[in-house]
């Protein structure tokens, strides 16, 4: 289309158009070749700094055991082997740690979504008495020092015999994630036009019906993203797990990986292998969802 259009223009008009478009992006395209070179050099340097430690993990994970202690900086080491990865599955409890993390994350996500979705809808739809109190609560809750509630939760869990169980830590994670999940979902529910629900009411649907039949299906993407956040938060969590899970057989991967990370003996290669296996899927998930994370963090924390 646009090609045909430009063919029909006279030469004069074409020149005019070009100079205009050039002017319009003058500031953007106005970098001289030298400036461009400079910008690229800076960005290449920054990118190298960003990925080098991750590449190093790959290097170390591929090193044979007798080559672990070396000052070699090559990316693919001499005599690269997958022995460290194999050892992880045959000699270490790596699979058990992953399994524990999966069980805990799954329980947390299901419970957390169940608790926060309906609450978020109530906050988005009604200005009930107590609404303001809820807002203030969510704001102050963000200002609790990390781990402030760890001690009371730990003591309560000890009394209820819930330390060293999946149940205890799942409940703690799930309830702790309610405020943030609720904020995210509330923002989404508010963005769905009211007319949709009103139309349903005209057709004789009750509020509950319009929630389950219209809003929930519409909100499925938002709910999955919220679930993904809850998942990533507890998948990567260290502090609470360190306190609540003291039995080796219940260790999640952040706790387990610390066993491997004793300094520069044979387990360093295994540590690196484990990190690669855990980090790559998490990084992929993160990159895929990063735009939602940003808008969620800024909007979720910001919207009155």
């Amino acid at each position, binding site marked *: 289309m646009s090609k045909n259009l430009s063919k029909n223009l006279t030469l004069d008009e074409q020149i005019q158009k070009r100079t205009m478009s050039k002017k319009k992006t003058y500031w*953007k395209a106005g970098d001289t070749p030298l400036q461009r070179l400079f910008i690229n050099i800076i960005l290449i340097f920054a990118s190298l700094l960003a990925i080098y430690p991750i590449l190093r993990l790959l290097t170390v994970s591929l090193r044979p055991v007798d080559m672990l202690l070396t000052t070699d900086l090559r990316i693919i080491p001499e005599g690269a082997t997958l022995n460290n990865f194999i050892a992880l599955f045959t000699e270490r409890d790596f699979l058990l740690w992953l399994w524990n993390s999966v069980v805990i994350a799954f329980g947390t996500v299901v419970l957390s979504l169940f608790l926060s979705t309906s609450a978020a809808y109530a906050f988005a739809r009604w200005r009930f008495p107590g609404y303001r109190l809820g807002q203030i609560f969510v704001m102050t809750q963000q200002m609790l020092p990390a781990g402030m509630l760890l001690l009371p939760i730990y003591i309560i869990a000890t009394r209820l015999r819930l330390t060293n169980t999946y149940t205890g830590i799942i409940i703690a994670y799930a309830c702790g994630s309610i405020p943030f999940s609720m904020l995210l979902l509330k923002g989404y529910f508010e963005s769905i036009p009211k007319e949709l629900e009103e139309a349903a009411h005209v057709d004789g649907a009750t509020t509950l019906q319009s929630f389950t039949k219209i809003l929930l299906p519409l909100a499925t993407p938002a709910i999955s993203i919220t679930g993904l956040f809850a998942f990533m938060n507890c998948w990567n969590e260290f502090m609470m797990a360190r306190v609540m899970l003291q039995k080796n057989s219940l260790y999640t991967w952040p706790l387990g990986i610390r066993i491997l990370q004793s300094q520069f003996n044979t387990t360093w290669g295994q540590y690196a292998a484990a990190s690669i296996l855990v980090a790559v899927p998490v990084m992929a998930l993160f990159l895929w969802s990063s735009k939602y994370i940003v808008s969620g963090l800024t909007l979720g924390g910001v919207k009155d």
Partner: protein
Amino acid sequence: MSGLTPDAIMLGLGELVKLLPIAFALIVVIELFTWFLCAKIIRTKFTLAYVMLAPGIVGVMALIVFPFFYNMFLAFSNMSMTKFLTFSASLQIGLQNLIDVFTVPVLQRTNIGTLIIRTIIWTFVNVFFHVTLGMFLGILLNRPLKLKNVYKSLLILPWAVPEVITSLTWRNEFHYQYGFVNIILKSIGLEPIMWFQDPFWAMISCIFVNIWLGVPFMMVITLGGLQSIPQDYYDVAQIDGAGGWKQFVNITLPLLRPILTPATALGIIWTFNKFNVIYLMYQGGPIEGTHILITAMFSAIFENYRYGFGAMYSLVLFVMLLGISSIYYKIAGGFKEVSE
């Protein structure tokens, strides 16, 4: 032997199969009870709202509100590992705890004054570099570049790696002999540094790691903000003869402010609360030299088992954080500005 035996699998599944149905049954019971209370006894028109809220509120009450007040109670007790069940609580003990927080070392040798100063330096240096470097990279990335998307996804990676892995990996890379930091220092003719032994260098390395970790967030925020600035502003400035620096100061910076302000506020709170990097790098060592307020709290409670003292200490931290945030919001005009 891989630890994932059938028994272990069954244990996990078994607990899930028990927990989830019980939780759902409980949710239904809470909802029915709320419905009965609101519809039959109070007769409010917001019945459905409260019914939908009730399970969430119960969860939040049980795991956030109640522990918060229980923590306050603990602050007025002398609970510790040895007095776990036989502790006593009184106003006097609470006051003593409060005095102790400010006079007695929080751990073995570091008292709260040192920790406060160190935390302020830690937070300030980190957030400063997060914002300046993040903004710098964001502005560069906003220019026309062929490999823009490649750079962007590479630069965002430090944010994507789980913090536990970041901290432990960098800890290895600061090793005196085999870590790449010292290898590179040596290759450019500098003396290798004993990162683990000297508190000063240990702290520098922690700060470096946390800067590495936090720049991508600010970069992404800046990019988002830059894209919402209309190009016309720059065109007009161009016509008026304003140079690059003037454009930056008079257009870019003021228009980025509303988005950078809440991001910086978040950054301050996050950095103040950054437990993982400090704790996983050196556990606050050497000689307690890298502890900040938050990690010292964790160590006092879960490594020195001073529960009553730790609870009071955490309350003091809470008041500090509340103070910092409210001052910041007042200065920066608050969140409201952004949503408009």
